[in-house]
C-alpha cells in the first residue's frame, strides 16, 4: 500500500499563528483562554473561551476574501496558505488536477448564520446581501480552499462534529492511497460559535476559568476556535522533491457509539482505537504517545481513560496521554486537526506537549497526562483520539518517518 506522509502544517490557533509560534507556546504550556469578545456573554454562566484574538486575514494577505467568506472559511484559507508555504509546494501551478481538499467542521459557517439571525430577530432586517447569504452553506469552506488554490481534485466537507478533523485527514490519506490524488490538503476549521457557547453553557459543561483534563476538580470544557490544515502527499512524491517530512500517516479507525447523542460510550471508543491500530498494522505495544480527546468534562475523561485501559492493558500508565485542549480549549471541528499537527510536531521534535492546569489527580483517570510541563521524549508512534456528538469517533495513527 502506498505510504502517505505529512509535509506541511498550517495553524491558526489562540496560542499561535503558524507552526513555530504554536509549538513554542504549546510546549511552554501557554493558555489561549481569554474573555469572549465575539458576542456579549453577560447573560451566560461563563465568560471565557479560546478565541484567536490576533487572527487577521489582512496580515495573511487575504483581505480580498473578507467580504465574501465566513470566518470558518477565512480560518481555513489562512491555515491552508501557511500549510502550502510550509510544504514548499507550488500547488496551483504544479498540481492543479491531482490535489484533493478535505476539511472538517462541526457547524461550519455558524457565525454567518448567527449574524443573519441577529439582524432578523433583533433588528427586523429582512433583506440580506447575496454575499452574506453565500457564506452560510457549509461547503463554502472546502470550496474556497479548492478555488483559491485552483485545484480540481475532489473537494470534500466533513461535518462529523468534533471528530471532523480526523475524518478529513483519514479520507485524504485514502484518496492518495486509492490513487485519486497525489496530494491532499486536509484539516478542520471552526469559528467561535455563540450557538455552541450557549449550548455547552446550558449543559453546564463549560469551565468558568480553566480547562483541566484528567484533574479531579475539573469543571468542564472551554469553547474555542481555530483551524489546522496539513499537506499530505505520497511518500514517493515527497522523496522525489526532497520535501521535509513530519510524519507518516499509518491509518485511522472510525466507529459509532449508536447510543446517545452527547454521552460518550467506552465500547465505541475502544472499538475506534482498536480499528485504528488494526488498519495501521500495529499492536497496542507500539504506541508511545496518545493525544487525548481530553475535553475536561467528567463524562469524556472517564470514558476515554476507561477505554485506554481496556485497549492498552497494563501498559496504559507507561504511555503519555496529554490533552492540549487544556491550553486551547475545544476547537470543535478543528480540534483533531490541530491535535494531529501537535502529534506530527511531537514526532518530529521529540517533545510531548503537556496537560496544563493539572492540580489534583483523579483516581479514575490515572494516566500519565504529562502534567503541566512538556517532556523531552522520542515519539515513534502517536495516536490522536477524537470523539464527537452523535457518537462519531475517529482515531488517527501517525508514525515517525525514517
Amino acid at each position, binding site marked *: 500500500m502506498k505510504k502517505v506522509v505529512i509535509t506541511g502544517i498550517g495553524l491558526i490557533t489562540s496560542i499561535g499563528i503558524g507552526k513555530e509560534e504554536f509549538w513554542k507556546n504549546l510546549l511552554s504550556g501557554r493558555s489561549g483562554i481569554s474573555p469572549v469578545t465575539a458576542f456579549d456573554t453577560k*447573560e*451566560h454562566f461563563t465568560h471565557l473561551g479560546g478565541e484567536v484574538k490576533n487572527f487577521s486575514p489582512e496580515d495573511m494577505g487575504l483581505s480580498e476574501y473578507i467580504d465574501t467568506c465566513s470566518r470558518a472559511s477565512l480560518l481555513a484559507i489562512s491555515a491552508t496558505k501557511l500549510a502550502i508555504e510550509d510544504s514548499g509546494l507550488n500547488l496551483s501551478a504544479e498540481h492543479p*488536477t491531482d490535489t484533493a*481538499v478535505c476539511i472538517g467542521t*462541526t457547524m*461550519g459557517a*455558524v457565525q454567518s*448564520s*448567527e449574524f443573519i*439571525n*441577529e439582524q432578523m430577530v*433583533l433588528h427586523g432586517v*429582512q433583506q*440580506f446581501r*447575496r454575499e452574506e*447569504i*453565500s457564506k452560510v*452553506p*457549509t*461547503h*463554502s469552506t472546502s*470550496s474556497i480552499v*479548492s*478555488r483559491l*488554490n*485552483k*485545484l*480540481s*481534485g*475532489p*473537494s*470534500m*466537507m*466533513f*461535518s462529523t*462534529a468534533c471528530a471532523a478533523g480526523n*475524518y478529513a485527514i483519514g*479520507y485524504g490519506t*485514502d484518496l492518495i492511497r*486509492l490513487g*485519486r490524488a497525489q496530494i491532499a490538503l486536509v484539516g478542520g476549521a471552526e469559528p467561535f460559535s*455563540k*450557538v455552541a457557547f*450557549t*449550548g455547552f453553557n*446550558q449543559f453546564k459543561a463549560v469551565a468558568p476559568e480553566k480547562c483541566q483534563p484528567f484533574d479531579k476538580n475539573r469543571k468542564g470544557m472551554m469553547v474555542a476556535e481555530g483551524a489546522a490544515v496539513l499537506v499530505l502527499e505520497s511518500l514517493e512524491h515527497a522523496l522525489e522533491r526532497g520535501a521535509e517530512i513530519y510524519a507518516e500517516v499509518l491509518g485511522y479507525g*472510525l*466507529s*459509532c*457509539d*449508536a*447510543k*446517545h*447523542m452527547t454521552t460518550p460510550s467506552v465500547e465505541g471508543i475502544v*472499538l475506534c482505537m482498536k480499528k485504528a491500530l488494526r488498519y495501521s498494522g500495529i499492536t497496542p505495544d507500539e504506541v508511545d504517545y496518545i493525544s487525548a480527546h481530553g475535553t475536561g468534562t467528567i463524562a469524556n475523561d472517564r470514558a476515554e481513560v476507561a477505554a485506554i485501559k481496556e485497549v492498552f492493558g497494563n501498559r496504559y500508565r507507561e504511555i503519555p496521554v496529554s490533552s492540549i485542549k487544556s491550553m486551547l480549549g475545544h476547537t470543535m471541528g478543528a480540534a483533531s486537526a490541530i491535535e494531529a499537527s501537535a502529534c506530527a510536531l511531537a514526532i518530529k521534535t521529540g517533545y510531548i506537549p503537556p496537560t496544563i492546569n493539572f492540580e489534583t489527580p483523579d483516581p479514575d483517570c490515572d494516566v500519565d497526562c504529562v502534567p503541566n510541563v512538556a517532556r523531552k521524549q522520542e515519539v515513534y508512534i502517536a495516536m490522536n483520539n477524537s470523539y*464527537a*456528538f*452523535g*457518537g*462519531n469517533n475517529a482515531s488517527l495513527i501517525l508514525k515517525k518517518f525514517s
Partner: protein
Amino acid sequence: MKDSELVITGIGIISPAGIGKDAFWQGLCEGKNCLGDITLFSTDGFNVKKACEITDFNPLDFIHKRHLRTLDRSTRLLIAATSLALEDSGININEQNTFDTGFVAGSTFGSLHSIFQFDREGLIEGPKYVNPSFFPNTVINSPASQAAIQFKIKGFNTTISTGLCASLDAFIYACDFLRLKRANTVLVGGVEELCEEIFMGLYQCGLLSGLDGSEPICSPFDKNRNGLVLSEGAAVLVLERKEHALRRDAPVLAMVVSYANSFSPNKKQSSGLEISINRALKSANLKPEDIDLVFSSANSTKELDRLEAGVIKSIFGKKVKITAIKSTIGEPCSASGGFLLSSASMALTTKLVPPTVNSKELDPECDINLVTEGGGLSGLKRVMVIGSDPYGNSSAIILQGYES
C-alpha cells in the same frame, strides 16, 4: 467475481413524489405534480408561496413517540428513509453485523433550521433560558447520528456536506469504504428539510422560480426556465459487496460500475463536471456511447442547466438520452443525489425512463436529447448519474443493471 464489485440492495425514500421506493418511482414516471402551498412556515413577505413539501409524512409511522419530541424534521426524514431501506433490503442489524455496517449521509443545510431556532431562543429569551435538549440538533451530523442510534449502526458514521453533490459524494465515500473492506454493508443517502432559512436564502439570491409572482415551475433545460422549486426529503440506499449480498440472497437492484468527483476552481464551472464524467468512464474502460441514459441534476436554474447540457453535449454528443427528475420532485439540495441514484436503480430494474416534465421548448444552448415523454427503454443497461453544485463540486456515478 471481483471482491470490489458493489451492489445496491435496498432503497428507502421519503419524497414529495411518494413515500417508499415504489410510490416514489410511480410518482416520477407519471410526472406527479408535487407543487403545493408551503405549510411548514409562513410565506408572508415572499412572492413565492409554493414548494415541493412532503405532506403525507407521519413520523409516528417510523419513530416511537417517546423518541420523537426533540428530533428535528431532517432527522425524522432520514430515520424514516433508513427504516424503509433496511426493510427493502431485508437486512436486520444485530450484534453480529453492526460493526461491519456503516452509515453515510449527505446533508448541508440539514441542521440550519435547528441552528437558527436554537439561536433565536437565546436572542429572545436570553441564553440562560434556552432548552438544552435541542442543542444536539445543531450539529450537522445530527440526522445521521440519530439514525445510527435508532438502528444501532456501529461500524462508522459520516456526514458529508458538499451541497447539491452531498449524497453523490456520500455514495462515493461509501463505495471507497466497502472497497477498502472497512464494512460489508453501508447505508448511504442524504437528507434536507424544507425550512424558511433555506427558502429565504435562495429567494434572496434570486434562485427560486416564480419570483415575479407567477406560478413556480421547474422546467430543466427549457428556454423559459426561471429558477428552481425548493423541495425536501430523504433517500437511503443499501450498498454492499456483491458476494455479501449474494450470500444472503438479497434482492439486487443495480451494480456500481465506477465513479469520480472533482471541483471546478474557475469561472468556467464546466471543467470539474467534465473531469468527473471522463474519469468515471475511463476507470471502467467505457466509452460515452456505452451509457444509455444520463440522470441530470439540472434544476431549472439558468447556469446549472446550461453547464450540464454543455458538458453532456461535449462528451456524449447530442444522442444520449437525458432526463431530469427535479422537474417532478424539485430541488431537495443534499438529498438530490440520493433521489437520482434511487431513480437510476429503479430505471435499471424496471427498464422505464421517468420523463422530464414541464420542459416544452429547449433552450437553444441546451439542445440535448431530453426525455420529455416517459416510457420503456428495453435496451437500458447502463446509466450515469451526474451532479453539480454552484460552489464548484461535481460528481459522476455509473450504475448498471444486474443480471444473475
